[in-house]
């Protein structure tokens, strides 16, 4: 047992980690530049920052003094729960991550990467890291800006809420939600884009699944990114209309369990993606 462990350790030590790290960094840099600084990326900026613009209008022009901070806290929670998780991050990650592999196939440029002396797993993980970095940077900074714009107009009361009250912990929770949502949806869409020639029908099924997830039995709710994120919400906003009647309330899971569950889901999906990319074949005539 000890001998086999030693063999494994030796084998791991013999791997060219330095080279892999260098290749991954270079690939990540190329992809980040493509994701953040191209005309094609402008719509992701729109998705991330459109609530910020509305909150800016509210902060500058709509200060009538009769608004309650508790109401604004609920509005912010609603923006995160209903806009960012279900729409903004979902469609943003769909655009970013489905382009990483499938987009290169459509543009007929993936074979350049596959012909270069880079392990395919390194290629996949570097692309995933680049997509995650771009998505987290955009949506994370948008959430920080939203948070600041909600509480800044309240002056000292807002300052007290943020620095001496529950404000900072709420911001931390929102950022954790943004990071996990980007990683979770990213991993799922990266895998879908490798499995299907057109990943959109499957992505729309995922959207439908996430939308109807609260009305499903608790066991099925676990196969969803949004259900894990719901447990991390510092302020919960109840559903409205017929969905509120049908919603199945699950046992509130501790934050560590929700985070661990989602990270496990991401790890499994990424491991399967690494397995898939080993067997990836490009047929440009059919793709």
């Amino acid at each position: 047992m000890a001998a086999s462990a030693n063999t494994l350790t030796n084998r791991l030590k013999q791997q060219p980690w330095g080279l892999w790290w260098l290749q991954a960094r270079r690939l990540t840099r190329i992809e980040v530049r493509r994701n953040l600084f191209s005309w094609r990326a402008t719509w992701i900026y729109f998705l991330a920052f459109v609530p910020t613009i509305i909150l800016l209008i509210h902060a500058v022009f709509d200060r009538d003094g009769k608004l309650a901070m508790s109401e604004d806290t609920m509005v912010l929670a609603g923006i995160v729960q209903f806009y960012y998780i279900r729409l903004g991050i979902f469609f943003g990650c769909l655009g970013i991550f489905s382009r990483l592999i499938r987009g290169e196939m459509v543009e007929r440029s993936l074979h350049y990467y596959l012909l270069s002396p880079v392990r395919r797993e390194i290629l996949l993980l570097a692309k995933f890291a680049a997509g995650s970095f771009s998505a987290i940077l955009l949506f994370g900074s948008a959430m920080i800006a939203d948070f600041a714009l909600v509480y800044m107009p309240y002056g000292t009361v807002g300052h007290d809420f943020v620095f001496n009250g529950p404000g900072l912990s709420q911001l931390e929770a929102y950022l954790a939600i943004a990071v996990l949502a980007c990683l979770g949806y990213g991993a799922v869409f990266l895998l879908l884009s490798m499995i299907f020639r057109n990943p959109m029908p499957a992505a729309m099924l995922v959207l439908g699944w996430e939308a109807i997830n609260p009305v499903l039995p608790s066991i099925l709710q676990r196969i969803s990114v949004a259900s894990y994120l719901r447990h991390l919400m510092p302020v919960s906003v109840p559903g409205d209309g017929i969905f509120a009647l049908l919603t199945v309330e699950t046992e509130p899971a501790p934050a560590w369990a929700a985070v661990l569950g989602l990270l496990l889901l991401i790890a499994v999906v990424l491991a399967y993606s690494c397995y898939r990319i080993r067997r990836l074949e490009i047929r440009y005539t059919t793709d």
Partner: protein
Amino acid sequence: MSVYRHDYRAYSGRVTPMWARVGVLVRYGLAEAWSSKITIGLGLAAMIPFIIFLIQIYLANNPATRLLVSRNNLRFLDVDAEYFLRALEAQCWFALPLMSWVAPRLITYDLADNALPILLSHPVSRFGYVLGKFLALFASLASVTVLPCLVLFVYQCDCAPPGWTMANLPIAFGIVAGTTVWITLLSMVGLAFSSWVKWRTLATGVIFAAVLVPAGVGGIFSAVLRTRWGMLLNLPVMMTQLWQRLLGVPEVVRTGRDWSLPSAAILAMLIAACLVCAAMLHARIRAREVVRG
């Protein structure tokens, strides 16, 4: 080989009428749309609520069922304007995935393959080209929206006691008007966004996002600025209110806030959306070829 003789003349024979040329585009568009198994699957899926509603009409008009249910005084068997609103909503929302799948098939291939110069060199104008594609999409969407809803109405007319038809005729007009507005808008949105997204696989997602993201943005606008006008960006809310009014169903305020919008504002917003889509199509549907060096 050089061509020395330049004595060509314009064709002076009988030409096909304009509508027939558009009809060719419609025919090929329909064939292209329904050649996909996913289109057929989505079309069949859209028939599931229709069958459920059809069974409900049968049960509602079956004396034995009515006798069993009447003891419990259940309202779910009532076939009234509210019932047709539910059917209309179900069918119309099933049309959204169908449109987002079919619209890119109709237009993106032509643009991605630089086929527009060849197509527009035939005796068909840019307007005729867009009209042909629009009609193909409109007909596909009508087959899962207005047709099933009208079949339900006709079946109820057949089953119901005499006098029901004349008393509820405005419902039929409401169904036709409501679905026509919806599928016209969907067709315009689908064609416009398909023409701007060259990558067909992405176009389906972009069309979905074009319908759902403004709804979220409108919701944020209304919640943050405490105004109902943000709902003018929320297509589901706007259409539900419009359908309710067309079918004569009373509006229920659920959340304590009145999000009700004036019908004129809703119609103005829908017309504006169609005009924006027309402008997008006008900018993209041109006989030009993109050559990359």
